[in-house]
């Protein structure tokens, strides 16, 4: 007997969309929030402090590229039900997977270093030595994922991310030159200056980091989002990406405002915290709390997501529900990422802020390699069926690849010519 269903009214339709949206909420938002980790905060701060409003124009294209790349990952996850490293392995074989995984481990090692450096400098503002803060946080992060209940803590981290609102308030209170800010938001400014290009690559790398592609796709798969809920999931991705960039915008504006009279390179947490000076004596506290939360949050996600991606791609057993003996490589990789990063950060003479910024440059340089494989994958009809990339997406994604590679080549050229 056929079942007759009355066509849903517009209101019902909206209600359904809202319900599905709430059900798929998570992957995009978490990725967006972790995107503003210690690397993000310091890169944007440096951009504003050193170059004022100049770099603002990059945010619009970067956001567009971010949306496209994140949307591609979510779509691949929803349609194939497989992670990015799984797909790379199945479609391109073991050697290429091995190469990509090596790049990912390298990029993420520097990211975890940046997170622990973020922990070190944020607590250093209160006189806590890095020899105490870093090992403690490293141990906390390790235990949380392996023995603890990460899922519960994740909500606390996410909630604590609302502290970023202080940047929006500071950005407004600091009375920036809105006219100039608006002009530079849309007026591209290119300079063949090594420092400037380095900063541009870092901004791309910190906003569209390689790890996010793997994390986002796995999160969509984990959440069980399928083609049916995909439209709502896409909205979540877009909202998340825009949120990331709004925060980035205000960090740059706040820093540009704070340093408007004497542009400077940021070398310490104190200088970065100056962006929050409208909060007077609370500036350090707020900056430190925001940076600490962002760093620990990302430090929880990055090593774990790296270990998962690598083990999935290479076919090793993975999962925190497995015992150490069952998933040796997974646990070793996870543990080593944390231990090695922590050791690097507590090494004497480690230049925190400089290294955080450099790690983001490296992320930016490695991004095109990941993007190329994503584009190749998502255009495979056998894999994606009618969900292959529309031409506009391909255009934006390829443009991102070419521009970032172009900037890397330009930077290398300039550095070689003027050593």
């Amino acid at each position, binding site marked *: *007997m056929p*079942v007759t*269903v009355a066509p849903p009214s517009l209101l019902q339709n909206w209600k359904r969309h809202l319900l599905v949206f709430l059900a798929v909420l998570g992957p995009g938002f978490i990725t967006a929030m972790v995107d503003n980790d210690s690397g993000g905060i310091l890169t944007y701060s440096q951009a504003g402090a050193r170059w004022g409003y100049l770099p603002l124009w990059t945010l619009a294209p970067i956001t567009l590229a971010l949306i496209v790349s994140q949307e591609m990952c979510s779509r691949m996850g929803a349609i*194939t*039900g*497989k992670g990015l490293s*799984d797909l790379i*392995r*199945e479609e391109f*074989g*073991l*050697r290429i*997977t*091995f190469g990509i995984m090596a790049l990912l481990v390298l990029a993420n090692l520097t990211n975890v270093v940046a997170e622990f450096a973020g922990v070190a400098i944020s607590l250093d503002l209160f006189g806590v030595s890095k020899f105490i803060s870093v090992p403690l946080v490293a141990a906390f992060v390790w235990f949380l994922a392996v023995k603890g209940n990460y899922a519960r803590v994740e909500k606390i981290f996410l909630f604590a991310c609302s502290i970023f609102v202080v940047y929006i308030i500071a950005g407004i209170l600091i009375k920036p030159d809105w006219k100039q800010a608006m002009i530079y938001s849309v007026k591209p400014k290119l300079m063949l200056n090594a420092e400037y290009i380095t900063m541009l690559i870092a901004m791309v790398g910190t906003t569209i980091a390689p790890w996010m592609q793997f994390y986002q796709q796995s999160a969509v798969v984990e959440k*069980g989002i*399928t083609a049916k809920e995909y439209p709502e999931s896409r909205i979540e991705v877009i909202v998340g990406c825009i949120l990331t960039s709004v925060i980035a915008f205000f960090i740059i504006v706040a820093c540009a405002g704070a340093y408007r009279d004497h542009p400077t390179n940021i070398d310490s947490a104190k200088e970065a915290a100056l962006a929050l000076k409208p909060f007077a004596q609370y500036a350090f506290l707020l900056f430190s709390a925001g940076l600490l939360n962002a760093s620990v949050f990302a430090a929880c996600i990055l090593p774990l997501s790296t270990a998962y991606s690598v083990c999935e791609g*290479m*076919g*090793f*057993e993975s999962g925190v529900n497995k015992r150490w003996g069952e998933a040796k*490589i997974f646990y070793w990789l996870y543990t080593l990422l944390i231990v090695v990063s922590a050791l690097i950060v507590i090494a004497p003479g480690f230049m925190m802020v400089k290294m955080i910024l450099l790690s983001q440059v490296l992320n930016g340089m490695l991004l095109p390699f990941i993007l190329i494989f994503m584009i190749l994958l998502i255009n495979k009809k056998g894999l994606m069926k009618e969900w292959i990339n529309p031409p506009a997406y391909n255009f934006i994604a390829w443009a991102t690849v070419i521009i970032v590679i172009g900037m890397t080549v330009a930077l290398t050229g300039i550095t070689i010519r003027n050593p």
Partner: protein
Amino acid sequence: MTAETFELLYFTELAGLPVFDLKHRRIGHVRDAAIVPLIHPSRVDRFLVGAGASWLSIRYDQIASISLKGIQLSNERLYPYHSDEYMLRIKRDLLDQQIIDVNGRKVVRVNDVTFEVRRDERESLSILEVDVGVRSIFRRLMQGAMPSRMVRRLQSSIPPNSIRWDFCNIVEADPQRRLRLNISHDKLETLHPADLADIVEELSPADREAIIGTIDSEVAAEALSEIDPKMQAAILENLEPEVAADIVDEMAPDQAADALGELEDETSAEILEEMEIEPVSEVKELLEYDEDTAGGMMNTEAIVLTGDTTLAEAMQQLRKHEDLLENTHVLFLSDASGRVTAQVPLARLFLADGSTQLKELTSERLISTKPGETQKRVTELFDKYNLLALPVLEDDGSLAGVITADDVISVLRKK
């Protein structure tokens, strides 16, 4: 130079081997190899050889010898390769893909394939094992970068990790291809449903549906009951309604109701439509209850007898309901009006003799609850009275259903 004898050949070594014709001219290199499962489950039936721009297909009986130096043909009749649907190609279909290790009860990714070299009147290859783990990764990465023999020597220090071909279950989502390649999921039916559930959870949605939809519906039902309800719903939703209905038929009514409750009304109506009459009414009844109440936790299948039933008669009744035994811990006694008045723990039946009436064997008091009771309170009752089963009674005292300890454990695990 004479070819040295060896028993094993890896696919990484086979791929790229030169192929020589009768006059020892090199005609090309091995690109892929294929088995034709309908003919033989493990023998390499075809070698696909790249010669210039085109591929040749060479049958196993056209080969004289196989060595690390190359393959020597015994026959000159060569045919161009045109895609053959009956072939399971090693490089294309097996390498780098996920398969199920039935013996180890897990999903693994294929790094390499080990062949046994058979030497009868001709030399042929037969799949012996599928290689996973570090050793085969090392082999794949190094092949071509150094001579095969050196790779073999270096890898010997890494412990091997392989799965016998008999224990491998290939997952194929396309039903027609599954038939052509003679792939069955029968081996999976021997697994414990909980292990099968773990495996299914690790696969992609298409593969999940392929497995649950093709294995015996009773095994599928048991495995499905162990899977997270959201995923259950996603799987059922994408199966044909008749197939889904067959599976839901076999599930315990409470679990069937949980699974259907996660589905959209339209889909669950379609499945209910296809189900058999008896389970459907129970499931529909259970769907009425809120998931977080005793009604949502309970199962409607229980054995209710009257107090004057003798033990011998009771045993007969039990034999009739053999399918219920696994989850039956107590018998319920009712009076003439259908009100449940007492319960008899099953274990007591063993100690009494055949003429004893059940009412003499009852527990001291009957702990019961109502369908609307909250999950939390039900859990407390189980804890407080150390229950194995808790009857859920309607307002008129008749039995609505029974909650068993495993239902409570599931609820607690979810928190």
